[in-house]
């Protein structure tokens, strides 16, 4: 459905580690596996980061060891569902793992990092990032298309989505059925829509993609 879909995605991992040597070692490790990495010192730096719309980002963050969590980071994770986060901690505390998983992180890794689980989490994170990227690009594309409509066409569109037939719309807007049909044809063309269901999809955004656990796929 996305028209500007790029076949080759670039990706970037943001690394927020507890100290300099861990940060350096993790950057080198992930670079050896072919990932682009950027080390960040603070959540503030993540907030100010110049995100590029064409790049899939995933944040790997050390969440510390405190049972009470890391408030700044926690706030960031909860308020920015568009950036997949992998939480890492040198405490393999069950409560923390549950807390961060519920917050929507794509993984909770205990340190020292096991390479297999690290790579799996990174792949999950980037896959999700790409889904979110596609989702966002599609939203932008739909928004652009909607801007092509005239005011009348937009009115007709809203009534179509409300479930009205052309004759109902004609009565409602005091137009002839023929004129309404013409508006409908035009707006369908301008929006490049396949049908009414597609129109609804353009107007009402679906939820931001989330990581689907293997067990959820069978639901």
């Amino acid at each position, binding site marked *: 459905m996305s028209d500007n879909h790029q076949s080759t995605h670039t990706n970037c991992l943001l690394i927020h580690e*507890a*100290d300099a*040597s*861990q940060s*350096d*070692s*993790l950057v*080198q*490790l992930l670079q*050896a*596996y072919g990932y682009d990495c950027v080390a960040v010192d603070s959540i503030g730096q993540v907030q100010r980061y110049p995100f590029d719309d064409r790049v899939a980002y995933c944040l790997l963050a050390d969440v510390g*060891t*405190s049972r009470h969590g890391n408030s700044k980071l926690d706030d960031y994770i909860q308020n920015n569902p568009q950036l997949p986060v992998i939480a890492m901690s*040198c*405490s393999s505390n069950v409560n923390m793992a549950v807390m961060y998983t519920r917050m929507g992180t794509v993984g909770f890794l205990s*340190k*020292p*990092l096991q*390479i297999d689980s690290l790579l799996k989490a990174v792949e999950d994170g980037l896959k999700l990032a790409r889904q979110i990227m596609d989702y966002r690009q599609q939203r932008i594309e739909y928004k652009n298309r909607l801007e092509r409509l005239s005011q009348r066409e937009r009115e007709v569109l809203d009534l179509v989505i409300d479930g009205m037939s052309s004759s109902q719309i004609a009565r409602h807007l005091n137009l002839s059925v023929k004129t309404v049909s013409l508006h409908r044809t035009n707006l369908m063309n301008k929006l490049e829509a396949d049908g009414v269901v597609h129109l609804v999809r353009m107007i009402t955004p679906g939820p931001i993609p989330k990581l689907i656990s293997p067990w959820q796929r069978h639901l």
Partner: protein
Amino acid sequence: MSHPEKPTNNASQSPTSGHGQVPGHTAEPSDVFRCVAEDAAELTTPQMMQMLSHLQRLNLSSHLGIGLAHQLNHPMSASVNYTQCCVKKLQDENFDRHELLGLMQLANQEAFRAAELITRLRRFVSQAVPRISTLNFNHKILEVVALLTPLCKEHDIELKLELHDDLPAFMGDRIQIEQIIFNLGLNAIQSLIDSQMSDPCVIIKSDLVDDKKQLVCHVMDNGPGLDVQIAPHLFKPFQTTRTHCLGLGLAMSKALCELHHGQLTVETQRTGGCIATLFLPVTRTAENVKNVS
């Protein structure tokens, strides 16, 4: 040193005493406690002092527990990342010899960083016979700070250092001096943990006063200050407001301090919080430090 009041009555005796005693159970618990308390008060015998100070160090190290384990995990974790990075590069047969060498050295360095922490702790809890040597006061403070840092990090306590950069060397027992500073530092940290103050901070400061004759170490915190009830009995053994502590910290520190002809004071600061100050004379030679070895 002064004797604290000896327990005079049997109020602390178990209520079951006199009847229903377990066969073979000869000493009442209260007797045992009283005996230990008296011994702790009589820290003047060198052997006893040595034993008790060792026990107290062991007890101190138990407070470091989890924070220390986490702190060990950091260099380990970095080391594992570096070696895994080498493994990958070797597997891909896509490597530069120098690059690989650099990674191995980094892995090595991180592993040593972990080992250093373990060595430091082991030295601190070792049952070494006290030995007088020439010491650098700031180095001793830094040793202690290295041990206390994990605990501070775990509880988000800021640990600030203000070290005088031109201190003369002095004579003393390395471990005992560290133990005194450690006790003061741990007291400050624990009062901050217990009181849940905002922006907790400990400042450790070294200085030279009294016409360059005395070394000083201040340990300041921004906690609630001294408990009014405990203040008069501050240096008595087994006096504590905390449930998990022996209450030996300050008593032991004072005794060790006196062995080094030093002084120890603990006060509430005007601005709130506690300030513990250790004074140590500079011009001491090995013979002047009595009873230590």
